[in-house]
């Protein structure tokens, strides 16, 4: 059993690096939005990407996901949680988008059904 050495909780430098990168990422995404540098789906992808990068930066530098006595189990459970959240939240959004057939007028619905589901009218 390894006794509680310093490396389990990172060193000052690892915290500073993580902190600086996170600030950079936050300001970057803020800049993209406020100055309208990008728009539409590309902006969404950029923001999503920046958020994901900051997630993994903080997981590594602040939460030390990769280090410590339970490293392997922590990573395994985190990825299982991540997959389940992606499945259920992504699935829910997919379902609720499709349930929007009801909010359109019947004419709009029939048109979009043919487009989505590929029926011949």
């Amino acid at each position, binding site marked *: 059993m390894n006794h509680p050495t310093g490396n389990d909780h990172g060193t000052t430098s690892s915290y500073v690096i993580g902190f600086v990168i996170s600030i950079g990422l936050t300001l970057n995404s803020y800049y993209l939005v406020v100055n309208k540098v990008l728009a539409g789906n590309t902006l969404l992808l950029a923001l999503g990407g920046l958020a994901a990068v900051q997630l993994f930066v903080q997981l590594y530098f602040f939460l030390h996901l990769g280090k410590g006595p339970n490293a392997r189990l922590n990573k395994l459970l985190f990825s299982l949680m991540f997959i389940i959240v992606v499945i259920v939240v992504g699935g829910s959004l997919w379902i609720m988008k499709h349930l929007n057939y009801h909010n359109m007028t019947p004419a709009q*619905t*029939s048109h979009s059904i043919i487009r989505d589901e590929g029926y011949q009218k």
Partner: protein
Amino acid sequence: MKKNYKILGIIVVSMGVVLVAGFLLRHNTFAVLQPRGVIAEKQRTLIITATLLMLLVVVPVLAMTAGIAYKYRATNKKARYTPNWDHNLTAETIWWTIPFVLVAVLGVITWNSSHELDPFKPIASTTKPITIQVVAMQWKWLFIYPDQNIATVNYVQFPKNTPVNFQITSDAAMNSFWIPQLGGQIYAMAGMTTQLHLMANDVGKFRGASANLSGAGFAGMKFIAESSNSSDFKEWVNGVKRSPERLTMANYAQLARASSNVAPKTYAWEDSALYDNLIMKYMGTDNSAMHMAGMTE
């Protein structure tokens, strides 16, 4: 030998029970298995084929259970006993692949049937479809005929062999619009329109009901769907046109008061925008083209 008599006895008794039950059931109408509509017929064949496919696995499993349990009972000294034989690759591959194949076949059936029997998909037919707007109220069904300018409660009639486009909404709790002998059910929800496309093959009266709990009067939320040949239908429509009551917004408010097991009623001319107003009432004005400011309070 005593054990064998007991098992035989059980088998004979259970066969007897099945026969008596079959005899007693001969008068009942099995709505799901005795369809009168195009959609319901396809759904019945689908149910029967799927059940037969399933029996391919169920019957062998039950037989094996009985056989193995009987043959390898502890008192049977002749049976082979191999305590440590705990895996066999061929056997395991067999019972991973058999269910896989069965599910693959079912998958194909599921893909085809879901697309073909989608309640939102209009029925391909040469005759001109009739549109009926359905409103699920506090424990009764209101049917509005936008083209014929009539409305009815807990009773709907349409000509046979003509596709019927139901546009369904609700004015209170969530319900489920279901006429078992004509086709599958679809939920009726407030503030939105769901659709159901059915077509009756021949003349008859069919029981319809709400299949989703919607409050105290839920059990009384049933209606009669009747299909008639087109001449009788025209005659019926003219008859309803002459009925004294008119379905105005005021009349509707009175009808909307909670009541159950309501006897069928008919209304003549009605406020044609009623159905759309009901949806707008819940919609608020955000994602709908028409800004009905007055309706949002």
